[in-house]
């Protein structure tokens, strides 16, 4: 038997595969198709304090090996989530992580303060890196001081673990990761999507109404791996790797470069059972090679 469980210090997972925010709805959308209890953890779609309208369509464009999205974090807000969704998620024996968004430090705090009063949340993932809500992909994760200040403020307001989700659209992701760690982050997840553009040559218009969007999917995996490696070797807190994971082997690459766990995103759209399949493929890999614990592979890159 291969032991797939991982211990992030602040959270134990039955397997290292979580579903990435924005690619798994609020979790229940997948319930008719898969057994949600087999997933390591569910990170729900990003929530602001209030409901949010999102961007006009077209919001999606497919590119070679990837998907550019500019959804704009349309969502129901924390109150509707707590009233309509969370009670049903509580019945599922899988850790629920809530991805928290805000347009200002105060708005993040307002959302967290509300969620603090709700049961059934294992941790927060602080979304400081969505590229689709302000002009030119502006977000707190682009700067060390805004990252540090926000993480510190949210940590002070919360008794739950905080994972900070970083942006790849920066000059030094290590500096941002250290700022988050100094601010009191319990863990780091990376990467969010890469700021991207696609053009229709006939109309000479951008293919997305928002002009820019965030690129995800297998095309971004090598960049994600490089950044996860850089961050995992620079911080002491656990790192959760994501970016283009489609298979168990992809996920193992992230573990080998130092991630303790991974998130599966775009793959969920293509294969609703992707997260479950990927953890099974990781188990099979370890079994075939006599590796007793998948966590034995973490940070074992030979250079």
């Amino acid at each position: 038997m291969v032991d797939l469980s991982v211990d992030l210090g602040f959270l134990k997972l039955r397997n290292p595969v979580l579903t990435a925010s924005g690619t798994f709805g609020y979790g229940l959308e997948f319930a008719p198709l898969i057994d949600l209890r087999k997933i390591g953890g569910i990170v729900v779609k990003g929530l602001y304090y209030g409901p949010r309208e999102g961007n006009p369509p077209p919001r999606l464009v497919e590119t070679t090996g990837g998907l550019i999205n500019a959804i704009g974090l349309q969502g129901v807000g924390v109150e509707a989530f707590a009233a309509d969704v969370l009670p049903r998620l509580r019945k599922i024996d899988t850790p629920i992580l809530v991805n928290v968004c805000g347009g200002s430090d105060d708005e993040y705090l307002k959302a967290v303060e509300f969620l603090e009063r709700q049961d059934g949340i294992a941790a927060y993932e602080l979304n400081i890196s969505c590229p689709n809500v302000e002009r030119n992909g502006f977000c707190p994760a682009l700067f060390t001081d805004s990252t540090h200040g926000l993480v510190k403020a949210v940590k002070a307001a919360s008794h739950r673990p905080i994972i900070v989700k970083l942006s790849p659209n920066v000059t030094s992701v290590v500096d941002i990761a250290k700022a988050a760690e100094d601010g009191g982050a319990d863990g780091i997840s990376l990467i969010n999507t890469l700021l991207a553009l696609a053009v229709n040559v006939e109309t000479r218009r951008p293919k997305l109404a928002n002009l820019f969007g965030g690129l995800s999917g297998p095309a971004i995996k090598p960049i994600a791996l490089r950044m996860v490696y850089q961050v995992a070797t620079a911080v002491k807190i656990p790192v959760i790797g994501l970016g283009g994971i489609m298979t168990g082997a992809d996920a193992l690459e992230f573990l080998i470069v130092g991630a303790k766990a991974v998130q599966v995103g775009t793959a969920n759209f293509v294969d609703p059972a992707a997260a479950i399949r990927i953890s099974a493929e990781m188990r099979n890999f370890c079994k075939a090679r006599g590796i007793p614990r998948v966590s034995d592979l973490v940070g074992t890159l030979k250079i």
Partner: protein
Amino acid sequence: MRHEPGARIIFKQSWGSYHLFRLEAPAIAAKARPGQFLMIKVSDTPFPLLRRPISIHSREKKTLEVFFQIAGLGTQILARKSEGETLDLIGPLGKGFDLGGHLKETSACLVGGGRGIAPLYQLGRALQIKGARVRVLYGGRSKADLPLRKRFREAGLDVRCSTDDGTLGFRGFVTELLEAEIKRRRPDKIFVCGPDPMMKKTAEIALALGIPAQISLESMMGCGFGACWGCVKRIRKGDKGAWRKICEDGPVFRAEDIVWEGTE
């Protein structure tokens, strides 16, 4: 909603860029209602990455039919599949058409443009079984865009065709044919699927005359079942409207609820 990863293609028919597959998909076929759709995986590799949303054309006890047109790389790859090969399907998806209860003495007009004819076949048959008088208006650019006219007639459906170039039936847009047909005999209900400008025009005609119309929208989709929020359209619900998901809240909406932003 079911996942059928090995639905076999047991029959294939092609007309230029239009294709019809009959698929062995008992779990989905058992649940499918008119106007619902499938998400079909077209490649075993990550290129192209996403599934393609394809209308359900008809259903029997254990089989489904899809009718589609090559519109890009995904449908091009799909069209190359042959009888005996299998497809990975998720479905049935979306809410489909609202047929209504008692349909005796009711007349329904179904308006299809190009590949938009696909979901109207199952709808027409279902309406007929419920006792409605069904007229189908089938429009396209040219005669070659109307390959299903015989199929509709064989199902006992009254079909009138229109072509932009006059190579078959009424010369002009199917929306003009609709206006003429309404003058001849006003339908109680209108059901529409086709290109956006044609659906927008049909909605205007129906709203001006106070005829209830249901419109089936098309969109590129990330997932097809409500998780990605990528396929939205502005839809009113007694308010000024919000971005609602075509996959989950639709793809069929009432004409009066659709806000046609950005349709040229």
